């Protein structure tokens, strides 16, 4: 009786036509390769995956309901706690959608500073992925280098925002405070410092034959699969599609800046790896140009003391570090949102894992999962 219950809970082994017996392997929710509390229920035929079923929800916090019991501005700190590694871009999406709905103008200096801080945040997010991904693959050293570099960004952002991770720096109509000359000097120095570091990563890691053998031709995700599942960000750009919200649906001052959208068409883990490595270089270019073009002036526009959003629904997407992050808001004209929907990239990117991992060997599937760059609270919300 107990055995039957246990078997139905974990899934009993099945005899396959070829005489092999399957077994169920539980991965997570506490497992270093899932980067947080994600559980994956794997049905295995030896070393090969027959079915991998992600079981999310372990750190679900009902962020969307929280939006319905506080004012528009009080929801701002929540948006930096969804994907905690990419907090700037997430708050950017939220202020943009409310500004769009309420018709709030933002001074150009504020938009430039938003772009500078967002891109620095993107680099720091990619550095965490870089370190953690290589850790998944068995390389310990790069993590130490990556976190060393990331520390410099965290120090910079801490000096203007007061936080090191869950930044709440943007406000409806601008920013909570201007930056000082030290920040700008520091950001310029960081760009100069980071370029040789990226070259060093190329030598140390990217050209490494062991890394290439682990990633090349592994974990195929093509453009059609991305479209059917709504996968975006480095995943779709590693499948040969130049889909980047900054370019496709331009927002903020991105149209005024010169940067490339890295695209690789190999559809494998290596392609997604290379996209992110190239993106760090492009983000450095953006930061450099935005500092050079940074206009003088106020960092806060004219905003009513209590922000009210006209009745209706509004939508805004941004390119976060993991892909397309969008917020759909529904207002009934009151001071409190009627509905806030968060469309998060990790959720959609993970949803294709079951199909993409079918027939893969387990260690390769972990490389595939690492190449999706998952942040679990971004899935669970």
């Amino acid at each position, binding site marked *: 009786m107990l055995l039957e219950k246990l078997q139905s809970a974990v899934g009993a082994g099945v005899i396959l036509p070829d005489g092999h017996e399957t077994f169920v392997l539980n991965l997570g929710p506490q497992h270093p390769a899932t980067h947080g509390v994600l559980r994956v229920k794997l049905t295995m035929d030896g070393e090969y995956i027959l079915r991998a079923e992600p079981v*999310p*929800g372990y750190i*679900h916090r*009902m962020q*969307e*309901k929280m939006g*319905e019991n506080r004012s528009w501005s009080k929801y701002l700190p929540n948006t930096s706690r969804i994907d905690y590694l990419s907090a700037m871009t997430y708050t950017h999406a939220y202020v943009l*959608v409310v500004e*769009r709905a309420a018709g709030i103008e933002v001074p150009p200096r504020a938009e430039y500073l938003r772009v500078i801080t967002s891109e620095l945040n993107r680099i720091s997010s990619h550095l965490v992925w870089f370190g953690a991904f290589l850790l998944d693959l068995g390389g310990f050293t790069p993590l130490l280098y990556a976190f060393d570099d990331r520390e410099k960004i965290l120090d910079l952002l801490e000096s203007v925002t007061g936080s090191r991770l869950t930044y709440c720096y943007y406000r409806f109509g601008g920013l909570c405070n201007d930056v000082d000359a030290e920040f700008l000097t520091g950001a310029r120095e960081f760009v100069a410092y980071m370029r040789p570091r990226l070259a060093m990563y190329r030598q140390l890691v990217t050209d490494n034959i062991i890394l290439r053998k682990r990633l090349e031709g592994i974990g195929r995700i093509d*453009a059609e699969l*991305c*479209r*059917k*599942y*709504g*996968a975006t960000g480095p995943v*779709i750009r590693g499948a040969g*599609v*130049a*889909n980047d919200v900054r370019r*496709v*649906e331009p927002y903020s001052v991105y149209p005024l800046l010169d940067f490339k959208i890295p695209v690789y068409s190999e559809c494998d883990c290596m392609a997604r790896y290379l996209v992110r490595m190239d993106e760090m270089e492009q983000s450095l270019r953006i930061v450099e140009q935005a500092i050079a073009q940074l206009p003088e002036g106020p960092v806060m526009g004219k905003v009513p003391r209590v922000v009210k959003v*006209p*009745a*209706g*629904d*509004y*939508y*805004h*997407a941004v390119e976060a570090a993991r892909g*397309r992050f*969008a917020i*759909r808001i*529904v207002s*009934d*004209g009151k001071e409190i949102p*009627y*509905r806030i*929907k968060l*469309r998060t990239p990790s*959720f*959609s990117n993970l*949803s*294709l894992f079951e*199909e993409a991992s079918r027939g893969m060997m387990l260690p390769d599937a972990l490389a595939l999962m690492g190449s999706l760059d998952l942040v679990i609270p971004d899935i*669970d*919300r």
Partner: protein
Amino acid sequence: MTPTLDELNQAFLRLLTPAPALGTACEMHDATSCEGKGVSPNPAPTPPPTSAPVPPCRIVEGKTKGYHFDADLAPDQIVPAGRLLDERGFAIDAVTGVDWLAAGQMEIVYDFYHPVSVLHVVLRCRVPREGAEVPTLSEVFPGANWHERETHDFFGIRFTGHPDLSPFLLPEDADYHPLRKDFTGAA
């Protein structure tokens, strides 16, 4: 093929109007008037006197709304509309719900983006709040599976034909739906 708004509009008009409409393209609606239908008591701006009902689909001002095309569907039109977008290369963005408690309705909202063009399409369907049920889109877009499961979690909307509507983000024994406006707290 990169779809155009006009072609999309024509295709949707053909799909949504049973008798062939006399080739009249929907006129441009501004941000407020496209909300006029059903969404909260709106100070409806120039309502055309009785005749000319709101067309079931319309081109929307993307700059102010964040999407470019909006269509109101009956439940049985969801899958054909999904196929129509699938054929034109759209990707599934999200599926979610909105609980209109006062009106006694559940709204299911489908978002689609296009990977290489700027177009963003919204499909909506309103059903009675009690026993809300619509067909699943997961056979057209497998990515809809998770979004629909989440929407079932949060709103209790059933998606007929969905392979597995067991609790997804909520605990596995959850029998409550927290985004319903009359939800008072989990026991």
